[in-house]
C-alpha cells in the first residue's frame, strides 16, 4: 500500500496533476475508492457490478479500505451500509439492475435518515425475462427516493463523480446519499483512456460531527435519540412533522446544486447549444449522440448537444433555457420507458418539441445512425 497523504478535495479534484491510464470502468471505480478514504465497503455480486466490488475488496486487502465484507443480499447490504453510516463512518457499495430492485426499500430510508452513502449503480435491465445487459430503466424507479443521482458518460466520469460524490454527500447542508450511475458494460467493461490523480493523495476523513443528525455511537448528544422514529401516531400533529421531514429532504437536494455546480462544473455540459436541434441526454447515450452530432454537422445540419450530468437534482432551469426556441429537442435513451424525456417534457416551455426517441433497451447498443435518422426525420 502506498503511503497516502490527506489532501483537500479542491487539491485532488482541480490541482493535482492528472496522469494518463488505460482502464476499464470497474478499474476506474477502484481508483476512485483508493483515494476516497473509505471506512467500510460492503459487497454483493451482480453482473455487471461484481468486478467493481472485487476490486474494492482488493483495496481492503491492501489496506486502502478499512473494513469490507460480502453481505447476504442487496437489501441486507444496503441495510448494513446504512447502519455503518449512522454510526459515523464513510461507506461505499455498488449494485445494479435486479440488485437495485431487491434493495429498494432501503433507498428512501437512506435519504430520510440523512445518510451520506455513496453507491455506484452499474445499471442493467430488470426481469422479466432475465437480462444481464445494459439498460437504464432502474433509474426511473430511483428518481423520487431522495438520493442525489449523477449519471456518468465514461469511465473518467465514473471515477471523478464517485470521488466528488463523497464530498457533496457529506456537506452538512446536503448530507444525502448519492447514487453514481454508469451504464453497465458500456462503461464498466470498456477499457478507455483516463486522466487521474496519483494514489498518493486521499480525501480527508468523514467527520460525523458535521452531520445534520446525531451519530449513533453513544458519544454524541442527545443520549436519548432514536434513528429514525415513528412520528408517533398518538400525536395529532405528527402528519405535519412527517411532511416537514420530507420537505427537508427535498430542500437538501436543492442545496446540493451549488456544490455540484462547483465540483462538476455545472449540472449540464453543452456543445453547439445554439443549434436548431438539440440532442439532450445522459450516460452513454451522450457518447452515441456525440458521434451522431459529428455526422450531422459534417452534412451541414444544425445539431447541438446537452449532456445532463445530474439527474437529481435535475437541471430544470438550465434545460428550460437551452430548449427555448429550438426547432426540436431529441432525447435518445437506453430504456423503454423514456424517463428522461418525461423529465425534460415536464420542465420545458414547449413539451411538444421534445421527441423521446430513439430508444433501445434490453441490452441493445444504440448505433449513432439511429440518432442521425431521427434528426433527419425531424428536419424533413
Amino acid at each position, binding site marked *: 500500500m502506498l503511503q497516502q497523504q490527506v489532501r483537500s478535495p479542491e487539491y485532488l479534484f482541480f490541482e493535482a496533476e492528472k496522469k494518463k491510464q488505460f482502464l476499464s470502468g470497474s*478499474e476506474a471505480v477502484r481508483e476512485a475508492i483508493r483515494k476516497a478514504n473509505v471506512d467500510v465497503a460492503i459487497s454483493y455480486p451482480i453482473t455487471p457490478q461484481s468486478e467493481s466490488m472485487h476490486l474494492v475488496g482488493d483495496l481492503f486487502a491492501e489496506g486502502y479500505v478499512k473494513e469490507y465484507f460480502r453481505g447476504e443480499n442487496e437489501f441486507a447490504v444496503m441495510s448494513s451500509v446504512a447502519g455503518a453510516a449512522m454510526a459515523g463512518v464513510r461507506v461505499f457499495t455498488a449494485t445494479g439492475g435486479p440488485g437495485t430492485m431487491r434493495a429498494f426499500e432501503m433507498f428512501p430510508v437512506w435519504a430520510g435518515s440523512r445518510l451520506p452513502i455513496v453507491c455506484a449503480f452499474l445499471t442493467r435491465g430488470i426481469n422479466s425475462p432475465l437480462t444481464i445487459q445494459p439498460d437504464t430503466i432502474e433509474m426511473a424507479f430511483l428518481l423520487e427516493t431522495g438520493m442525489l443521482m449523477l449519471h456518468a458518460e465514461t469511465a473518467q466520469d465514473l471515477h471523478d463523480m464517485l470521488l466528488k460524490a463523497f464530498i457533496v454527500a457529506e456537506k452538512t447542508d446536503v448530507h444525502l446519499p448519492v447514487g453514481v450511475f454508469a451504464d453497465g*458494460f458500456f*462503461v464498466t*467493461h470498456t477499457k*478507455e*483512456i483516463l486522466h487521474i490523480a496519483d494514489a498518493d493523495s486521499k480525501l480527508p476523513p468523514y467527520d460525523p460531527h458535521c452531520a445534520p443528525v446525531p451519530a449513533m455511537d453513544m458519544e454524541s448528544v442527545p443520549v436519548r435519540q432514536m434513528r429514525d422514529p415513528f412520528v408517533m401516531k398518538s400525536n395529532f400533529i405528527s402528519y405535519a412533522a412527517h411532511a416537514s421531514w420530507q420537505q427537508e429532504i427535498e430542500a437538501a437536494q436543492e442545496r446540493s446544486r451549488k456544490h455540484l455546480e462547483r465540483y462538476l462544473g455545472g449540472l449540464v455540459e453543452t456543445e453547439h447549444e445554439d443549434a436548431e436541434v438539440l440532442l439532450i441526454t445522459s450516460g452513454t447515450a451522450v457518447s452515441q449522440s456525440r458521434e451522431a452530432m459529428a455526422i450531422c454537422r459534417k452534412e451541414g445540419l444544425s445539431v447541438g448537444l446537452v449532456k445532463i450530468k445530474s439527474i437529481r437534482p435535475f437541471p430544470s432551469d438550465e434545460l428550460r433555457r437551452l430548449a427555448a426556441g429550438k426547432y426540436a429537442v431529441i432525447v435518445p435513451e437506453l430504456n423503454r420507458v423514456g424517463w428522461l424525456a418525461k423529465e425534460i417534457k415536464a420542465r420545458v416551455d414547449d413539451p411538444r418539441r421534445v421527441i423521446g426517441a430513439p430508444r433501445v433497451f434490453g441490452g441493445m447498443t444504440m448505433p449513432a445512425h439511429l440518432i442521425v435518422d431521427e434528426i433527419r426525420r425531424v428536419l424533413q
Partner: protein
Amino acid sequence: MTEKMSIRMSGLGGQGVVTAAHILGMAAYKDDLQVTVNPFFGAEKRLAPAESYVRIAQEPIYERGEILYPSLIMVFHPHVITMGKSYTMPFFDGLEAGGTILINSASALDLSEEERDNLAKLDAQVHYVPASEVAMEVSGTHLSTNIAMLGALYRIQQRPSLDALESAMVERFGGSKFVASGSTAALDDAVKEKFAKVSQMIEKNLEVIEKAGESMFQQTH
C-alpha cells in the same frame, strides 16, 4: 493512420478474443493512439460464440458498445463461419466497403456463392492465416492462437508497433495487476503453466507474431 480502425474479433469462448482485444488496445494506448476496448456483453462460456471490439483512432472516440460497422473483422475459428458459431450473421455483416477480413484457417474456406458475391460487392480484402497451426508449432500450445491472429493483423496494419505489442503482452501476462474475469483468469494460469518464465512466453509470442505474419495468404472472392 488517418482512418479510424473498428475491429470486430469473432471466435469461440476460450480462444482469447477478449485477451487479444486487450493486448491490441493496450498496445495502441502505448503508441499514444486513442483507443477503446470492450467485450461482447454476455455470459462467458467456453466454446460459445465470443466477440470483442477494438476502436483505434487519432481523434477522440465516443461511440461505445458492439461495433456494428467494422472496418476489420478477425475470425478466430473457422466454425464461426462454417458452423455459424456467431451472434453476428453472416460473419461479414456490417463490414465497411473495402474492409478487411482475417480468418484463422490453413486453407481458404469453401464459402457459398452468395457469400462470395457479397464479399466481392463489398470489395472485401480476405486474408487467411493458419493461426492455430503456427501457435502449436512455435509455442506448443493452441492458446497462443490469439497472438498469432495479432501477428497477422500487424502484417496487414503495421500498427500498433511491435514494441508496443511486446510491452502490452508483458503488462498483460507479466504482472498480477491485470483485471480479468474469473474464467479468463483461470485460463491465464493454464497458459502460465506452459511457460516457466513469462519472458520466455513473451519471446515465444513474438516469434508467433512473426511466423503468423509470414504464413498469411490472401484470397480474392
